[in-house]
């Protein structure tokens, strides 16, 4: 497998690199140019984003002053309690929600609306109920992959259906699918348009443990296939999943006006082996850290009860 040194982001490397870059600039321009190339590009940059909703009972601020830079090729997991604003934050990246203040830059451009450079798996799947499983994916591919001929498109859709093991169900309507199957269609649809940024809002939440594991592997396969150039941002409630997949885990505070509580690096080498990493002391350390970040508020409430 081809490995680029910048395509396997290491914990904390961005800090070092930017320091080096500044240094290099001061020393000589030729080496600065070299460093800029090797420097991981920023894929998504969330700048001081606040999102407030108008509600009948007044203005509700869901997330407040969020700053987050995500490198190209990085996998970032967002965790936090239900209702803290994870989907809201994701939606500012996808362009479904406009920040009340601040801005999001994706692929070098300010996000003003959704676009096919950011593939989305919606938390509620959002399949078109009148289109078959096949057509749901085909229409997306047809819109985005403009230079494919129709036979290639068909092939591409079928390949993606096989990846999520839904080829036999391709002619069913979404109403005839189970929750997990719908979720897999949504995943196949987002993967099929080959976006440079994948936004996954609890993409595996409705799946059983085995299917979930398979999907983790498929996700990483896809990521590897593209030389780890795809940026993946996912919301999850599952700490094990976050550690297995992500380079960094962003833990959010509870709302209203949720902020980032802490960003935890996952210091595990890739490729990660699901069975083996659980015995890795680094894994256990990260797991404990995330768990206590999520639980410390609960334990107080428990005592009160």
């Amino acid at each position: 497998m081809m490995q680029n040194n910048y395509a396997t982001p290491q914990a904390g490397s961005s800090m070092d690199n930017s320091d080096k870059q500044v240094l290099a600039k001061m020393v000589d321009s030729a080496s600065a140019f070299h460093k800029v190339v090797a420097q991981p590009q920023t894929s998504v940059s969330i700048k001081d984003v606040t999102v407030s909703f108008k509600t009948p009972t007044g203005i509700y601020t869901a997330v407040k002053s969020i700053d987050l830079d995500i490198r190209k090729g990085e996998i970032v997991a967002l965790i936090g309690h239900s209702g803290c604003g994870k989907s809201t934050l994701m939606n500012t990246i996808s362009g479904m929600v406009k920040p009340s203040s601040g801005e999001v830059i994706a692929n070098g451009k300010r996000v003003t609306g959704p676009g096919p450079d950011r593939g989305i798996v919606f938390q509620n799947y959002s399949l078109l109920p009148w289109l078959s499983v096949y057509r749901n994916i085909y229409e997306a591919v047809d819109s985005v992959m403009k230079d494919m001929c129709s036979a290639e498109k068909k092939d591409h859709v079928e390949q993606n259906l096989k990846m999520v093991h839904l080829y036999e169900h391709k002619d069913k309507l979404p109403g005839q699918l189970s929750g997990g199957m719908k979720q897999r269609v949504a995943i196949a649809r987002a993967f099929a348009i080959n976006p440079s940024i994948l936004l996954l809002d609890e993409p595996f939440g409705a799946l059983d443990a085995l299917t979930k594991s398979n999907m983790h592997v498929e996700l990483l396969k896809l990521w590897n296939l593209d030389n780890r150039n795809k940026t993946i941002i996912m919301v999850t409630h599952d700490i094990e999943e976050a550690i297995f997949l992500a380079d960094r885990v962003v833990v959010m505070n509870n709302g209203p006006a949720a902020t980032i509580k802490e960003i935890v690096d996952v210091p595990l080498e890739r490729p990660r082996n699901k069975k083996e990493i659980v015995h890795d002391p680094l894994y256990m350390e990260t797991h404990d850290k995330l768990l206590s970040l999520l639980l410390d508020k609960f334990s107080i409430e428990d005592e009160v009860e």
Partner: protein
Amino acid sequence: MPVLYFVGSILLLLGIWTLIAWGNRNPEATDLVERYPLPTPLMTLDVLSEIFANPFQNDPDVKGIGTKLIGSLMRVGIGFGLGSLIAIPLGLLLGSSKFMMSLINPIVQILRPVSPLAWYPLGLAVFSAAGGGDGLMNPSSKAAIFMIFICSLWPTLINTAFGVASIPQDHKNVGKAFGFSVWKYIIRILLPYSLPHIVTGLKLSIGVAWMVIVAGEMLSGGDGLGFFVWEEGFNAGKTTHIIVAILIIGIVGFILDKFFSSLQKAFSYDAK
């Protein structure tokens, strides 16, 4: 089972009808027609053979009941067809543009409550001035078509606009997130979602149109069922003919409604 209910329902209707006819009878009269101002079902059955003797006769003076039915259906078809042709695209536009909705809605709100019959004299005045024609195309028939056209606009227009305006944000987001072109958005999201609403509108419209045509043809004369009721029923003193016409109008209306109901079923994606 549904057939049994249907038969039961018909028997109930015949029973009530007989009771009322009997209650209304004039015991002194010797002549059957005079004895029953409201004819009984049996008396009505008797005239059927007369009315249906030559249904598609189409001479200048004498027209069969079938010819009249076809005349009414043609007027409804043309008026409803033209109305739908305007109402559906306009409804799609109103539903997708707040600006157009705000601009056009007051017009709709003012014109919609007007009884369709009020449009008849207006149509007649305009079409008479424009000159005559034959059969369907004579001014009074055109005025009836115009009336049908107007009254079948509103339910379709309003339902279509409502359908489009209520497309869930989720579906719109799919279009945006996956870069659908405007055309693809229209044929893959907007139309499939609003189709059931459009068909509901059409169903309501055809119902109104079929009700209104009878009244319209009483005014317009000519070769329609409405005129049959008035001229050959009331003016000729043949109450049985009025009843037969009412039954025919009812049955045809029922069939039209069933037809659009089946369309409704065919176009609703969640019923499958």
